[in-house]
């Protein structure tokens, strides 16, 4: 029974980590502009993140060392600075966007301007990180995030995707001159879904939860089922946007209009459900991004760390998160639209993805860490495939951003 609960809670966490402002924004735009033609990108990203999350959890469970620790130990300080720096830059943009998502969600519920609510959203994130135990951080937003399953309820309520829409799943309708935008959105989806912050967070979470070699079952189920559920949710948003927004000529350029699909299906309740779902997913993601930075820095530099500990028991860990949150909030309060920020964040993530993922190929084959649980041949081939995918995306991300006019 305890194992069942542990798995269930782990799955909820994975859902909360998968769907964030980046996934909402890219899914909404993808569905609105290209029907079901970008579901493949979401599925591809899902397979990749499932693999990465499983590996990072297995590493932490067997070795008692997190991904960031293993990078520093195995590759040295100079190399460690590369993924650290790229993560800091990507995450500061992402965090500013996620808090923006929280602020917009609160705005949709209260009618108050999101600019005014931004500091309150940032404060809420910080207070939670400062004092809440890991279990609350893990499970609170995730439980609330179950509301995202209402996307599929809305789809069913509307009678499912109409006949002409279904073929776009395997034969996307890309109009003349739209190819750059189509490919850019594909790259952005991959950058939004394959988020290294999730890998660093998950690996540290496994240590916070004191996983051991016997936790491999929980790890596998959490990675596959959790990420799978998250993906289903995001795909639900693509389908809903394709069914409702596309035919109305709506492009999904703001967070508020992405919720119109829910309103079309479920009326006033739909809009409220969308706002709550947006709040839960962005709030959960904000917590995970902040913590992943704290974890990455502390583990790489050798500081005491742990969300289960009081701030005074892990001072530099908490101080680093405070400083990072302040910087991200400063960027967010410049007033840049959260969707624009998240696209920049996803693009930058796509650009530096190979740097953050390359160490997996080495570490996961090191028996000093994994003992008899090193990668099998299939897993190594899959990891190499993900790395090649990440490299391709990194190569084309900036040119596509330029060509498509910034998404």
């Amino acid at each position: 029974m305890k194992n069942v609960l542990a798995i269930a809670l782990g799955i909820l966490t994975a859902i909360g980590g998968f769907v964030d402002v980046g996934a909402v924004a890219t899914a909404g735009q993808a569905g609105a502009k290209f029907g079901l033609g970008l579901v493949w990108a979401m599925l591809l990203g899902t397979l990749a993140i499932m693999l990465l999350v499983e590996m990072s959890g297995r590493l932490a469970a067997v070795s008692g060392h997190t991904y960031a620790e293993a990078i520093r130990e195995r590759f040295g300080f100079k190399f460690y600075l590369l993924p650290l720096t790229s993560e800091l830059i990507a995450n500061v943009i992402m965090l500013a966007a996620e808090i923006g998502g929280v602020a917009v969600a609160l705005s949709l519920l209260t009618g108050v301007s999101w600019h005014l609510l931004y500091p309150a959203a940032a404060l809420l994130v910080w207070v939670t990180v400062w004092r809440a135990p890991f279990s609350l951080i893990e499970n609170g937003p995730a439980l609330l995030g179950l509301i995202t399953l209402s996307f599929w309820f809305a789809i069913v309520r509307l009678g499912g995707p109409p006949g002409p829409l279904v073929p776009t799943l395997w034969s996307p309708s890309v109009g003349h001159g739209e190819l750059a935008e189509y490919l850019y959105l594909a790259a952005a989806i991959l950058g939004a879904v394959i988020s290294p912050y999730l890998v660093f967070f998950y690996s540290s979470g496994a240590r916070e939860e004191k996983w051991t070699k016997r936790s491999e079952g929980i790890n596998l189920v959490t990675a596959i089922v959790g990420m799978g559920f998250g993906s289903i949710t995001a795909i639900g948003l693509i389908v809903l946007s394709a069914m409702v927004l596309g035919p109305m000529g709506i492009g999904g350029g703001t967070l508020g209009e992405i919720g119109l699909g829910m309103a079309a299906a479920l009326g006033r309740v739909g809009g409220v459900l969308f706002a709550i779902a947006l709040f839960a997913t962005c709030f959960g993601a904000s917590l995970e991004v902040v913590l992943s930075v704290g974890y990455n820095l502390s583990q790489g530099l050798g500081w005491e760390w742990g969300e289960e500990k009081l701030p005074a028991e892990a001072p530099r860990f908490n101080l680093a998160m405070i400083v990072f949150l302040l910087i991200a909030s400063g960027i967010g309060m410049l007033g840049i639209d959260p969707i624009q920020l998240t696209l920049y964040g996803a693009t930058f993530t796509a650009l530096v993805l190979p740097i953050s993922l390359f160490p997996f190929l080495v570490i996961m084959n090191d028996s000093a860490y994994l003992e008899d649980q090193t990668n099998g041949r299939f897993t190594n081939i899959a990891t190499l495939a993900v790395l090649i995918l990440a490299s391709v995306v990194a190569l084309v991300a900036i040119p596509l951003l330029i060509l498509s006019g910034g998404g």
Partner: protein
Amino acid sequence: MRVTIQQERTGINRARSVRTAVGRSILFVSLAVLATGCQMTQSPFVRVTGETGAELAAAATTLQYAHEGQLTHLYAQAAFEGYASALTGADQEIIAAEGAPSQELARRLADLSREAAAVAEQPCLTASCNWQGQLTLLRQASAELIEAAGG
């Protein structure tokens, strides 16, 4: 005598050569994509009119839903803040964008966009003002802009 030992990891040399190769590949692919890019993209005029038209369609739908009881007024109010922000400066962008069939069309669309943006700044969310007139304006502006974008 004190000697400080500094250690370099052997894996780093491999990583360094991989990074150099990746860097050169990025440059090559970027140039190739940019060179062929003109077939993959829309003109700036098509892009900005399409985006503006889409935002106005969203604004029109939001206004309609708010008055039909399909959205709370609080939601609509917050959503319109987003539309107003997205539409700020759109009229200037339309006039300045390359690829317009004629300057006359660009000016007309810019005027429409400006009027519609004014609605987005002050949407009529109660029954006591002319929300139907606003709705008509938003729908008309959206339709014309989307048509100009080739939609």
